[in-house]
């Protein structure tokens, strides 16, 4: 990118500058700086730090390989990121009302949490105390009908959080009832392949079933939103987030190929779900590094030739681990910075956490403020007018390279391990980092405003705005049980038992489970009934993994 002679000259001058800086810092007792993730940081970056970059090879143009600068040629000029605040409270009625309100305020995407996480019905002992608290509660198709009531599934893309196949089937059943063919439907399901299933086809592996069903019937639907956002929120570092995401993405792609699917076609519909944390420059660099690493991986490993299938598209939900219960209004500022990093990093879709989310499910006003945060960044800050405006910064380019290198090296380690061990290793690394994070906060090495520094807050109520978190309504459970009983009463018992027998047979035969599941949910079988049928057919108790619920 630069004339080697010029670089050599800058490097000489930089060496002199750096030795002066070292002296000053040593005298002042300032320790060496690093990013939040522990990557070494310099005081200043120059062209000499990025002298080996080849512009066309390493950066290129937005919409072109290796997509470092973005996946759309025009960035946000022609396609804004989707405003996709995550919603989920009470029964489908409360969540639908909240969604419709947010949509009336400018929300453009559907994203609901809690759907089918539990694998028990609302009238079960397992549901007592849970219904509607950690997201919406879903028992039967009747709930998804209510959830999507008044929402145009042709105009709004649906994001399914969690990978519940019954819920996925319910979404497809509602679309079918509205005359929308699976091939027309646009949306995303949180999914990635996990170990399991026999042989290369991995029969009986629900995550691969989803990939297969989508690849065959739903060309406009993202068959896997590979979520590493929650892993990041559980503690891991930025390079680990990139490495884990690429590992899971490649693992899913390989599983799909093993099922006999076309890599190019599946890759075109893989998407990612990432976090946005405190270290602003590192986060922006992270998105850029991941786009570059992923594009090269898909092209080189899977021989994908259509460059669009190599483009890393991602949704961002801003960090929760960085928000504080203390002085909760500070979280508004934190989340805005997180969201700004995601915008500068070229996110396709976004959900900004609400300031009161550390206290309870957000109130409607707090959720609206999160939406406004997105709108202010999009319409007022001006950062959306230029694609990848931080690209070319010596620092951001150097960090992008550092993150890519660290992630590629970890990815190599993960891929050298047997499947199950690799998944366990990711969990182990994440827990180690979570522990280190808390230790660093306890020791004051990492400052958290309002938590371990600047902790004074006026006691006088008149000095601070009132914060009233949403209160959990235990009546939601009673209401949900009534909804469940009503659905059971109204369904055709013969059709329900036939669908149940058919479903059990499909589980036993290890068929792709999606089609029989659609029939099961259309017969208004409940998620609890479906889960018990699965347990009976497979003779194993259902154990949800932390982030792949309900498969």
């Amino acid at each position, binding site marked *: 990118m630069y004339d080697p002679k010029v670089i050599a000259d800058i490097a000489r001058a930089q060496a002199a500058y750096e030795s002066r800086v070292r002296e000053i810092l040593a005298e002042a007792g300032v320790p060496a700086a690093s990013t939040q993730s522990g990557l070494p940081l310099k005081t200043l970056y120059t062209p000499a730090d990025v002298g080996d970059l080849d512009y066309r090879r390493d950066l290129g143009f937005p919409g072109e390989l290796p997509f470092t600068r973005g996946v759309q040629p025009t960035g946000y000029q022609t396609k804004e990121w989707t405003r996709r605040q995550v919603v989920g409270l009470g029964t489908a009625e409360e969540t639908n009302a909240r969604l419709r309100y947010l949509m009336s305020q400018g929300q453009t995407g559907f994203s609901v949490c809690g759907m089918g996480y539990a694998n028990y019905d609302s009238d079960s*002992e397992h549901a*007592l105390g849970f219904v509607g608290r950690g997201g919406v509660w879903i028992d039967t198709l009747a709930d998804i009908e209510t959830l999507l009531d008044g929402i145009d599934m042709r105009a709004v893309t649906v994001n399914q959080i969690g990978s519940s196949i019954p819920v996925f089937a319910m979404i497809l059943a509602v679309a079918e009832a509205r005359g929308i063919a699976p091939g027309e439907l646009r949306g995303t399901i949180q999914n990635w392949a996990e170990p399991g299933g026999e042989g290369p086809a991995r029969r009986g592996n629900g995550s691969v079933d989803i990939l297969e069903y989508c690849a065959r019937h739903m060309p406009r639907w993202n068959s896997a939103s590979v979520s590493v956002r929650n892993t990041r929120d*559980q503690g891991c570092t930025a390079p680990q987030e990139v490495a884990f995401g690429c590992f899971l993405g490649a693992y899913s792609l390989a599983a799909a190929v093993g099922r006999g699917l076309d890599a190019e076609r599946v890759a075109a519909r893989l998407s990612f779900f990432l976090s946005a944390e405190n270290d602003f420059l590192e986060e922006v660099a992270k998105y850029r590094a991941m786009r570059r690493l992923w594009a090269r991986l898909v092209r080189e490993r899977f021989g994908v030739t259509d460059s669009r299938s190599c483009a890393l598209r991602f949704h961002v939900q801003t960090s929760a681990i960085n928000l504080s*219960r203390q002085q909760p209004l500070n979280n508004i500022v934190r989340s805005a910075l997180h969201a700004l990093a995601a915008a500068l990093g070229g996110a396709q879709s976004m959900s900004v956490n609400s300031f009161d989310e550390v206290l309870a499910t957000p109130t409607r006003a707090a959720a609206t403020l999160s939406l406004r945060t997105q709108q202010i960044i999009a319409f007022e800050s001006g950062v959306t007018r230029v694609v990848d405006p931080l690209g070319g910064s010596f620092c951001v380019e150097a960090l992008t390279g550092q993150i890519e290198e660290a992630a590629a090296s970890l990815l190599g380690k993960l891929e050298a391990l047997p499947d199950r061990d690799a998944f366990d290793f990711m969990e182990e690394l994440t827990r180690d980092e979570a*522990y280190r994070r808390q230790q660093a906060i306890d020791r004051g090495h990492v400052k958290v405003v309002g938590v371990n520094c600047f902790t004074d807050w006026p006691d006088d109520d008149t000095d601070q705005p009132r914060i009233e978190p949403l209160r959990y309504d235990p009546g939601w459970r009673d209401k949900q049980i009534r909804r469940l009983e009503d659905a059971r009463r109204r369904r055709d018992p013969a059709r329900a038992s036939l669908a149940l027998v058919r479903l059990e047979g499909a589980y036993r035969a290890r068929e792709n489970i999606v089609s029989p599941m659609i029939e099961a949910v259309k017969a208004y079988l409940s998620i609890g009934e479906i889960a018990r049928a699965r347990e009976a057919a497979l003779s194993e108790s259902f154990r949800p993994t*932390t982030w792949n619920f309900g498969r």
Partner: protein
Amino acid sequence: MRVLLVQDSTGHSTGYHVVARALRDAGIEVVLGGALLPREIARLAGEEGADAIGYRIMDAAPAILVARLAEALAAAGLADIPVVVGGIVPQEDLGRLAALGVACVFQPGATFAQIADGFREVGAAAASRRASMP
């Protein structure tokens, strides 16, 4: 001291695992019970001879779960095992948890040292209660 650490669900379990490690580092023996129903927690606490129960509650309503746990412990004759709650507990639930006999609640922002000290104090108080019983 032997602590049974349990949680209400498997999701968002960072705090659960981090606290488990912090307690172990502080020299406290930790039995990881995982995600259990309140009645299962009471049974396991008895089987393991726990000196205290640490209950991480994230997804469910704390007062509802703790009331069920208190009932199950009482039914099993284990009401003297102190219960410590960790997680996001609404302000309005703090009084209810105290009334249900919860010894201590740790919310986001608690340090490792505070949590380990809290368990030790709770364990010591329970031991002295037992010693003073006729």
